[in-house]
């Protein structure tokens, strides 16, 4: 019998980012457990994107520390964090628009953390799991917007990440695309922990096992979806009623 | 001559250099600031101004002042018109893409330079000083014309400053520089502004050339050194910052004049170019300007 013990994958201690006088992220403490799907919600300007950018190394923290798999990664550049298994997909679609879909995924697969299979296999696997194998030879920039978003995730997937950070992945997608997207994220969760910034509450409630609410650079509340739904402070700050 | 008067003379020479450099660099800086375009052909517009000045003064016999006045009006205007068409026909077509613009302006550099070579030949051409007047200092006499160059440059700089800060055109330019899209949304004809700015930048270089040509001579290769020097000025001053450009031009023009009196000019150029490259790498906002993105 195997006892599944909750293990901390990533934690942040008093993590802060100041832009001049603006405290975009202000002494945030945060813990993420291996295998969970966590959603971060909060009003615009709450510091969500800044916070995850600190985690993946796109921005340098002003203060505080980040621990990933029991190792302090605060000072590591973004590319080293990516190689340790933190994948980030951009809020604004950022793909290689002049290259083919397969080439896009191949670039991502080249630095995968898990290289037990050969590169061609990993590329095909990421394409198949994302449901876009038939688009492999299309030029990425010519894809429909929804498919570009999926390609973003496929690139994340090809890195065989331990933690996949998705920044507003469903923004601008149709209802049907959103449903497919939720299935994809559930599938990814079989092999990776997922951290999701999301505005669509339907997606959040459907996917997230725990929710962190941010407001003005701080963590306002954290808990199970049901607890968050009932939390008065959250209602006031975010749900707008 | 004693050291004191010698330094005074070197300073005067430096001021003339600085004045001309101010005008050239201001043109480059204006174009970069508003359009985010690095104009590698800027030195050729300067050269064109000088050669046109020689050509135009050739029309007038008699008092050289008449020819000079004609040259300083017609020359920069012609250069401005040419630059206007270059902007319209080439830079606009490549949508001001930084890489394409640089390559295109390198092409324009060759075209202008070689056309001048074909049309006016390879010889250095002198232009008569519009007037002879020596100002007598206790130690030496100094050309009154050179002092006029300094004064004229100051007047022109004041005029440009006035246009930028006090007129509607200046406001429109600053708005375009600040945010191209918003300016467009407010009904500013950004394309028109770009063409005018590019023509003005070239015109400023041409004015500087007409002013300097009675002191130096007009030659089809004379554009290269001023181009490099004004690059240096614009980088030290902070790309796109006009105030920084002026301060830097003054310092570099003065020091270039003074240093080359005391040191080997090659060594001076070597060291200064190296230092400037380092400034661009380690302090891209320049030494005097405010931070601006490349």
């Amino acid at each position, binding site marked *: 019998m195997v006892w599944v013990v909750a293990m901390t994958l990533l934690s942040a201690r008093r993590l802060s980012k100041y832009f001049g006088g603006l405290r975009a992220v202000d002494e945030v403490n945060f813990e993420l457990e291996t295998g969970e799907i966590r959603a971060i919600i909060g009003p615009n300007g709450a510091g969500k994107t800044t916070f995850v950018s600190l985690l*993946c190394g*796109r921005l340098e923290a002003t203060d505080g520390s980040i621990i990933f798999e029991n190792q302090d990664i605060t000072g590591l550049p*973004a*590319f*080293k964090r*990516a190689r340790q298994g933190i*994948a980030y997909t*951009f809020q604004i679609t*950022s*793909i*290689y*628009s*002049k*290259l083919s879909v397969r080439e896009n995924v*191949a*670039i*991502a697969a*080249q*630095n995968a953390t898990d290289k037990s299979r050969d590169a061609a296999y990993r590329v095909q696997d990421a394409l198949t799991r994302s449901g876009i194998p038939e688009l492999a030879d299309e030029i990425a920039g010519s894809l429909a917007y929804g498919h570009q978003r999926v390609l973003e995730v496929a*690139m994340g997937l090809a*890195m065989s990440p331990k933690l996949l950070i998705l920044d507003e992945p469903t923004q601008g997608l149709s209802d049907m695309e959103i449903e497919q997207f939720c299935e994809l994220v559930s599938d990814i969760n079989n092999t990776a922990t997922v951290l999701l910034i999301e505005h669509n509450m339907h997606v959040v409630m459907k996917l997230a096992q725990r929710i962190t609410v941010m407001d003005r650079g701080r963590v306002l509340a954290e808990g199970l979806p049901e607890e968050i739904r009932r939390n008065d402070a959250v209602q006031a700050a975010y749900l707008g009623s | 001559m004693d050291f004191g008067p010698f330094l005074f003379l070197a300073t005067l020479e430096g001021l003339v250099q600085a004045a001309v450099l101010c005008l050239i660099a201001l043109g480059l800086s204006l174009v970069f600031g508003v359009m985010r375009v*690095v104009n590698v052909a800027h030195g050729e517009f300067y050269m064109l101004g000088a050669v046109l000045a020689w050509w135009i003064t050739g029309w007038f016999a008699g008092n050289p002042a008449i020819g000079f006045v004609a040259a300083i009006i017609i020359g920069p205007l012609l250069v401005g018109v040419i630059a206007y068409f270059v902007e319209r026909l*080439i830079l606009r*077509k*490549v949508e001001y893409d*930084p*890489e*394409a613009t*640089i*390559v*295109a302006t*390198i*092409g*324009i550099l*060759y*075209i202008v*330079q*070689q*056309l001048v*070579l*074909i049309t006016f030949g*390879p010889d250095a051409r002198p232009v008569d000083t519009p007037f002879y007047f020596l100002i007598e200092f206790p130690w030496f006499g100094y050309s009154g014309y050179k002092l006029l160059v300094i004064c004229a440059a100051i007047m022109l700089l004041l005029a440009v400053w006035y246009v930028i800060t006090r007129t509607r055109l200046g406001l429109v330019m600053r708005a375009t520089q600040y945010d191209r899209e918003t300016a467009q949304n407010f009904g500013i004809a950004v394309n028109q502004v770009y063409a005018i700015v590019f023509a003005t930048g070239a015109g400023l270089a041409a004015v500087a050339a007409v002013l300097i040509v009675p002191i130096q001579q007009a030659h089809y290769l004379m554009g*290269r050194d001023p181009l*490099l020097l004004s*690059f240096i000025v614009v*980088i030290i001053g902070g790309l796109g910052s006009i105030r920084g450009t002026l301060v830097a031009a003054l310092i570099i023009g003065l020091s270039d004049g003074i240093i080359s009196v005391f040191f*080997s000019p*090659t*060594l001076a*150029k*070597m060291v200064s*170019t*190296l230092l*400037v*490259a380092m400034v*661009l*790498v*380690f302090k*891209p906002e320049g030494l005097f300007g405010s931070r601006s993105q*490349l």
Partner: protein
Amino acid sequence: MSSEQAKSIFLHAGVLAGLFLLQFFLPEYHHLSVTRIMLLAVFAMGFNLLFGYTGLLSLGHAMFFAAGMYGAGLSAYHLGWSVPLSFMVGIACGVVLSLAIGLIALRTTGVAFMIVTLMFSQVAYLTIVYFTTYTRGDEGLVMPESARQFVLFGQQLSLTHPGTRYNLALMLLAIVMASVWLLVRGDFGRSLIAIRENEARTKMLGYNTFLIKLKVLVVSGTISASSGAGYALMFAYIGSSFATIQYSIDPLLYTLLGGAGTVLGPFLGTALMFYLIDITSEYTSAYLLVAGIVLVILVLFFPRGLLGAVRNRWFGWLP
């Protein structure tokens, strides 16, 4: 081996074989021209690795060419070293200079990178002029007789013999072409293109983009230096005019004309431009006018160059 790969190998080997055969048919004048073209094409290929594949526009590649030229030329002239040794010194100078320039200049991007490389190259030019005691500046140095003969693999070779020069240049071209071909088709080439297309994204995919750019700059600078070293030794002359801005613009022109980001493009562009200028200079001393016009036309109408246009339209497999 995929059929695309076979086609590509066939094409490149074919070009090299064609150049080998060409020497038996060329009249003396063109024999010499093609030797020069092959050497200059090596320079352009080095440049293209940085510009065409990685998207870094250097306006100072003349300094790497000059590093090779003066490294080889000065050691042959002043130290009397043998031709192969001088050639290696030229290449070593290229490695050292490109490493140093890379460590500094790669802190900048975009327009700043272009201007910084331009300025460093200008410093290199002024350095050559300043140390005129050793370099004789613009006037230059003619290689001594001792640097015209050498022994390679037990063969006594003379650089005064046109056939020797031709085949040595062809050998250098073949080595560089094969290296570039291998380099751009592998994982390294993919990472270069990734940086060209979207550097920010590439960082987030786990690439140390600074290190990759540094590596490619060193390879690019070294290839350019090998061209300069070859030029100095084969044509027995070094002079500061080879370090001017003009020689930084030339590889850009060749690459743009032939097609940036293709292996054969720089060679094609060098050959075309060389003959275009050669023919024009018979009629006018203002032959650089052609260079200017070609640059503007390319930027306006053929931003991908000749081979780039061909690849887009017909042959997707062209590397």
